[in-house]
């Protein structure tokens, strides 16, 4: 573990700049629109929190989407009952998902390894089914929980507009967007995105502090050797439970943010595929690294939203410069990898990463960096020789 705080500070500054400049950086890639940018930030936060459990303690939860869902439901209820201001909503998301994680973690952490994973999966599927059918009065079942004109919203002024009010931060509405056009590109600066981005940055900062704290070192020790840690006088159970609850609260916060940017909550958010997705994000980006999970989340969401929109006619326009037979062949082959086939591309990419870069994209980045640096030092060593 690094004790150097200077590197960490640089990393944090770099991260902050990249996130805040997201709308500018991603616009040329077709990903600079608010909806997707918000998703990048929200799932980045989800993955950062998940990594505190999985990356640091090694406990692989397959049920973290349950906390995401609980966070969304809590936030929407707050919008319905209290106010459209986002602060109380997020507060409730974090508290409820934390309590929920305490309960599930308390039971699941009695086992480790695959049994722990299966217990969390079982709990999450149970929550999903409850939300879908049994708890309909709270979750509105299949339709999902939505806002209504008749909701009380006791703290807000009487609504006279005749339409459902939008979520806001003390009057600053989340869906307002400033657009700029430059060099043929449209840059969109959206309040909702910047709100999510600030929370992501705060979440990243806290995760970084945890990683550099005595508590964080204990979590790493749990991953490495629990027997030794027990015989060192440490009770590992409260540590794993704390990590579980913290990551559950991150998930709940992410769920709350989803409700803020789009005020509805559905049971499908809690399904096992959603739990599996955050596992993939973390592994793809780099388990146990600070930046990796955010990268992984960005990658997967990019594929899901951009690759899936490339259809045959887009492909045809790309290859129109080729002779007809060849362009048809290219379109025929690539057809399987884009559009509805984006899963295939992502799956292949995931396999390649797991096989060749077990440390995820972060390992790839580190290798590239080292390769460049050794080249640099070589050439700088050569230079004085040449001067002689």
């Amino acid at each position: 573990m690094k004790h150097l705080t200077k590197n960490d500070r640089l990393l944090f500054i770099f991260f902050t700049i990249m996130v805040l400049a997201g709308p500018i950086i991603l616009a040329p890639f077709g990903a600079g629109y608010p909806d997707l940018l918000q998703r990048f930030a929200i799932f980045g936060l989800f993955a950062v929190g998940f990594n505190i459990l999985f990356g640091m303690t090694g406990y692989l939860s397959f049920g973290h989407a349950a906390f995401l869902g609980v966070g969304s439901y809590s936030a929407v209820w707050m919008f319905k009952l209290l106010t459209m201001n986002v602060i109380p909503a997020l507060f409730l998301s974090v508290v409820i998902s934390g309590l929920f994680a305490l309960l599930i973690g308390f039971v699941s952490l009695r086992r480790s390894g695959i049994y722990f994973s299966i217990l969390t999966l079982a709990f999450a599927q149970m929550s999903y089914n409850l939300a879908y059918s049994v708890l309909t009065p709270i979750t509105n079942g299949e339709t999902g929980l939505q806002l209504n004109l008749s909701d009380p919203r006791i703290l807000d002024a009487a609504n006279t507009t005749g339409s459902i009010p939008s979520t806001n931060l003390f009057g600053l509405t989340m869906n307002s967007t400033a657009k700029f056009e430059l060099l043929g590109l449209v840059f969109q600066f959206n309040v909702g995105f910047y709100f999510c981005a600030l929370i992501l940055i705060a979440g990243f900062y806290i995760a970084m502090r945890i990683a550099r704290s005595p508590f964080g070192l204990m979590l790493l020790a749990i991953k490495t050797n629990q027997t030794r840690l027990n015989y060192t006088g440490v009770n590992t159970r409260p540590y794993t439970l704390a990590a579980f609850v913290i990551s559950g609260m991150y998930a709940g916060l992410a769920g709350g943010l989803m409700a803020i940017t789009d005020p509805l909550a559905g049971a499908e958010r809690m399904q096992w595929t959603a739990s599996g997705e955050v596992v993939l994000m973390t592994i793809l980006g780099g388990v146990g690294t600070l930046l990796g999970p955010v990268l992984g989340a960005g990658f997967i969401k990019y594929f899901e939203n951009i690759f899936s929109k490339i259809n045959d006619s887009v492909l045809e326009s790309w290859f129109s410069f080729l002779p007809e037979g060849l362009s048809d062949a290219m379109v025929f082959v690539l057809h399987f990898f884009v559009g509805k086939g984006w899963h295939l591309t992502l799956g292949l990419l995931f396999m390649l990463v797991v096989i060749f870069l077990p440390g995820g994209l972060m390992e790839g980045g580190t290798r590239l960096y080292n390769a460049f640096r050794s080249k640099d030092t070589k050439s700088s060593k050569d230079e004085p020789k040449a001067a002689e």
Partner: protein
Amino acid sequence: MSYLEIRGVNKRFGGLQALDDVNLSVEAGTIHAIIGPNGAGKSTLLNTFVGKLTPDSGTVTFDGQSLLGIKPHEINQVGVARVFQTPEIFSELSVLDNVIIPCLAKRDGSFKLNGLSLLSRQADIREKAEQMLIDVNMQDKRNMTASSLSRGDKRRLEMAMCLSQDPKLLLLDEPTAGMARADTNNTIDLLAEIQEKRKITKVVIEHDMHVVFSLAQKISVLAQGHVIVEDKPENIKGHPKVKEAYLGGTS
């Protein structure tokens, strides 16, 4: 006054009487060795001190407190540290972090939620850990990953981890098992050195008699679950019962 007191301990595994009315008392500040041929019950006996096995009958008390039925981390909090037959270290972490962890556990107890305090700002812990590494001559390896150490160095590190907590009692299960000659001698020297610097009560389990003769103040010989002799090393060497046990064990 004896520090560690074992009274009438019995343990059966199916039809096998692994421990048969074992009595043992260890004096404070001494090294007490338990030797015996393969399968004599040495590890079984040690496991009753550390919360891994509960004997069928008998008592194990340390400093007046019973060690039976309490969890490993509670045993450590009482002041008992343990070195394993194969070194148990945090192999993915750096050597320095390996020593920082027991220092933290000593200061913070069995659990502390200090997720926002920076470890790099905690000079007391760092200094203590660095000093410990100097004491065992490993300061130049502090940034290495523990898994890349030699077997002898892993053992050395494990001892440093235990010693950094200033335990009252140190249990060592075959500390030289499977080691090359040079590493064995190193470990023996280290133990002697530690004993000179800090008089920690130690119980050393050994299969190989020669390792403990120079170290121990007292030796108990265990055979088929029985303590057959308990005496000073010089009286153990030529003891007819011991010879018989070792010869009987190999034939």
